[in-house]
């Protein structure tokens, strides 16, 4: 199972094991990673599961889908080129070692 690393705004890292086939938000929430709120439970309606994908992994993770792209304009923390909604990022073995950064604010 792939390991993904959530880096909190203060620089501390949380390493969690994610199930392939689920989404990144799920891995964060079920492991109690602070800073991923996920109010809408993964339906791309709330924009409170925002993450910045680490530059090194940007290409691997790919661009946001249409609905997600729209929501990303309305996140609490600024949008950056590597912004994604973690509920829209599928976990796969190819993402083993992925690093994502959690923004300061979600709401």
């Amino acid at each position, binding site marked *: 199972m792939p390991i993904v690393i959530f880096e909190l705004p203060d620089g501390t890292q949380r390493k969690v094991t994610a199930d392939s086939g689920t989404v990144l938000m799920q891995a964060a929430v079920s492991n109690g990673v602070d800073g991923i709120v996920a*109010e*809408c*439970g993964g339906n791309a309606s*709330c924009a409170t599961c925002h993450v910045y994908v680490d530059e090194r992994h940007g290409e691997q993770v790919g661009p946001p889908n249409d609905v997600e792209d729209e*929501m990303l304009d309305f996140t609490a923390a600024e949008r950056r080129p590597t912004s994604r909604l973690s509920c829209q990022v599928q976990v796969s073995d190819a993402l083993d070692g992925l690093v994502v950064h959690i923004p300061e*604010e979600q709401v």
Partner: protein
Amino acid sequence: MSAVTTAAPGAPVVDLDLAELRRDPYPAYAELRRTAPLAWVPSVGRHLLTRYEDIVHAEKLPEVFSSREEGSLLLRTVGPNLLREDDPEHRRLRAAAEPPTRPRQVRDLWAETFEHNAHELLDRIAGRGEADLIGDFAEPLAAANLAVVLGLRNAGADDISDWSRAMMAANGNYADDPDIWLRAEQATRDIEDAVAEMADAARREPDGSVISSMVHAADPVELTEIQNNIKVIIGGGVNEPRDVFGVGAQALLQRPDVLDRVVADPGLWKRVFEETARWISPIGMYPRQLTQDYEIAGVALPAGSRVALVIASGNRDESVFERADEFDIDRPHRPHLAFGGGPHFCMGAWVARHEVSALAWPLVFSRLKVLRLVEGADDLMEGWVFRGLTSLNVTWQTS
């Protein structure tokens, strides 16, 4: 799964007076959080779940805490609808209805009309120097904006308000008053006709509205489904923006120092909105029914148990929000529960945020100079399932 309408064995039973809850539910909620975070309340016929953590937990488990509640008054009033469905049925209807309520759509399609509507209402009262900001402004504004987003060009703001009121009354018609049912039936028939007409128009010419979006959904939706879901949205869509507007405006008028800061720094309106919705949530609770045996807040509930998620109480939970009873726009960011959570996360959230915090408040406080509350006015805060001000009497300088 049939509904179990009695207390779970082992659940504490707490008598709460409905009239008292209506007047001010917060003291009772504080007591429940402290002594019985899951309690059977006979007058409500449900277990009230009142702590933040437990509510969040339940919201994230829709397969256990089902929205399909049997014997629901909402079902009787409007028929099957997305609020009382679980996924995948709920998802199909939501996907069809949601696109016009997303934030970019709100900005690109509706914001201009919302602003126009607000100015028009303010033009009407500006020269008077006094008004009830609920009846003269917030309610007609919410109704007019809702008509636009839904695509009901054949209905006026007054129709929308009347329909909403008739259905809300039926929804809380626990006393089974036949007049209330009659009025609701008339309202729902009127809505059905109006929706059928606009659905026809949208079939010929899409207009980006909710009706149009449902008519053209990739996963087909029947006309009756469109009608029922529009009824639900009309039922709630007037109250919430109206109530957040009123409660927040009153809070600021009572705190001139905070108001000065917000007027000087309009970026703060967003915080006023979120704090108002936390402090006095326009929707205070919603029902769920258990699909299986499940233990929560130390009580083993049997399948079929009826539970009310009391989000108004979760939003005052001291373990999450310090000095939770105070209105404080500077409190540390913690997510509130006012929009609900999980798949049913409020579909109107982005519409309400824009219409209230980006438009209604800033326009009212910039156009009506030296705005003051009328001293001694009987502006009542009321309700526990839904809570807001019944009126907000103010004066301002006209010259």
